[in-house]
């Protein structure tokens, strides 16, 4: 398999994640889109690490995972708070601030 395939797959995953962010209304799903983007990145990292033949990329993937986990903690907390207040997790409902 050519390396291009891996990179393209990463790009496709990334695009899917981004599209999810743009299209889905539920905050949790939006957030999952972000996670997908991060994981696409991880794929890219490990692919490139293999290509370069060093471990840096793989280590980086772990960093990204950790960060993603941290984001989840904070993100879910915020989303949950909003959900408790508004009884809705739709990102389209939070638009008091505009203009």
């Amino acid at each position, binding site marked *: 398999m050519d390396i291009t395939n891996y990179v393209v797959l990463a790009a496709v995953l990334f695009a899917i994640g981004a599209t999810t962010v743009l299209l889905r209304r539920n905050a949790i799903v939006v957030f999952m889109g972000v996670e997908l983007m991060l994981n696409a990145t991880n794929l890219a990292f490990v692919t490139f690490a293999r290509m370069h033949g060093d471990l840096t990329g793989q280590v980086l993937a772990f960093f990204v995972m950790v960060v993603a986990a941290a984001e989840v903690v904070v993100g879910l907390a915020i989303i949950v708070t909003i959900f408790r207040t508004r009884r809705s997790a739709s990102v389209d409902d*939070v638009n008091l*601030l505009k203009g």
Partner: protein
Amino acid sequence: MNEVIGLAPWLVGFPLIGAAILLLGGRATDRWGHWLGVAASAASGAVAFILMFRMIGTPAEDRSVDHHLWTWLSAGNLDVDLGIRLDPLSMTFVMLVTFVGTLIHIYSVAYMDHDPDRRRFFAYLNLFVAAMLTLVLANSYLLLFVGWEGVGLASYLLIGFWDTGRPSARENAVAAKKAFVMNRIGDMGLIAAMALLFAHAGALDFGTALSEDSVGTMSQATATAIGLCLLLAACGKSAQFPLQAWLGDAMAGPTPVSALIHAATMVTAGVYLMVRSGAILEAAPTAQLVVVLVGAVTLLFGAIVGCAKDDIKKALAASTMSQIGYMMLAAGLGPAGYAFAIFHLLTHGFFKAGLFLGAGSVMHAMGDQTDMRRFGGLSRFLPITWITMGLGWLAILGIPPFSGFWSKDGIIEAAFIPVEGQPWRAWVFGTVAVLGAAITAFYMTRLFFMTFGGRRPRWTENQHPHEGSPLMWWPLVFLGVGSAALGLVLGIGGTFTTWLEPVTGHAEHHEPVLPVPVIITATLVVVVLGALLAFRMYAVNLVPEEAPRGSVLTRAARKDLYQDAANETLVMKPGYGLARVVQVGDRDVVDRGWSVLPQAVSWFGGVFRKAQTGYVRSYAAGMAGGVLVIAVVVWLVVGLGGAQ
């Protein structure tokens, strides 16, 4: 001469100090202010006499003296001294101004007796004398301009002297403004002339600018341009066509003012300017022709208007305009005419001042009535006025040996002198001059007999005319004597012409197209005919108290040949229209144009803020789209980069 020239600044100084004291002193000087004014003028007159006698005692070629006071304006390559030029021409004026001026000051003490603002009046009069003397004594166009506008200011202040507290206050004020503004139109000419002169000669003093070096190297076009610009100035100041409209309205001022400023002195400043700038005019025949034309037109214009006016002062004002037309005509004739222009100016100064003061005396007696149709038969009640005005009447008609004869006849003769290559000129202008004399005879006779003659007074009720105080009639006597004798004294043997020769240059003697005795005879004949016609109409026939409708010409003349309507239509309405356009344009185009900028920003702001929808997903879309857009822009601007 040089030993007394140091006195010359006092000619201006005395009245100037007088004006300053009276203006700054305020009410404290009310009690004696008028006498201070008289004294200032008289002191100036005394200095004038001293200088005059010294000048007479000086050889003709040394009579022109320049006196430097201080460097006035020195910047760039322009140097103008504040200096005095005393020569026979300015001396003539100085004598006229101080002598007539002092008489009128004295007259005014009585005439303005009951006016609470008499002090202010004298302050203005003194200011006028100072400015007028500055005008004639200046040794440069720039300083002349100071006097030029100074007299304009004094004229403005005096025309509008009664600008509050009277029913006619507003009209007086408007008349004053009109005079000043029309003078300013003329002043544009003087400014332009100075600019041209400076561009050509690099100097504005008479000594340099009018020297052979300067005028001799002047191109025809430059000389013509300067000449015409100066003429414009003269037209404004001397109420010559087409800037004549202010003079009639200027009669709103107190009568002594009309006598001094709007008859004897200020209005003749234009003639002075022409004569002073003779060197330039001689280099520009076209300009000269225009000067003559203006003179001729104004001469007839004033004369025609004078025939129809029932207001004694306005009739006299029209007459003044017409007489200055004579002078202007003469001034355009070259050296042959200069002397007579100034001579007529001098004699006119006496007889017209006398006539105006006489009119003032009549008005004083008739309770400020100016309508001649309500006079009549006054000779019995105002004998001194009658006699002195009679002398003035004879003088202006040009009946020998009264003074007007000597000067006006000279002008008529000069007008008949042929000009090379333009034979029509002598005939046309000569005829106009003679015709003018005839009309003059008509309207002055009309004025004289409507006032003093007639079998039946047409007075309004409760009139008890009587002579005023001696302060009023003594000046009349002096002026009457002058009107009678001045021409004889100065005219016989060409004394006056010779006197002015150092300034005007010697005129080659040319023969008029008609023999001189023929001209004199013809003139006298038409004058007598005109006078007889007027006598028949206004002394023999009854004068109606209400003006009859009159012919088309009469009605036109009554309305000053529609000069105000013409100005209104040709200048003021378009001018106002233009101003409206500018005003609306400033508000709706310029100002609004600038306010479009903030409005546009606000509009865009209002549009763009809609992009800030409040939806997270649209923000994210914006970011993603932004990435793509930037990538595309990079691609478009730089191309797909790199080493590929």
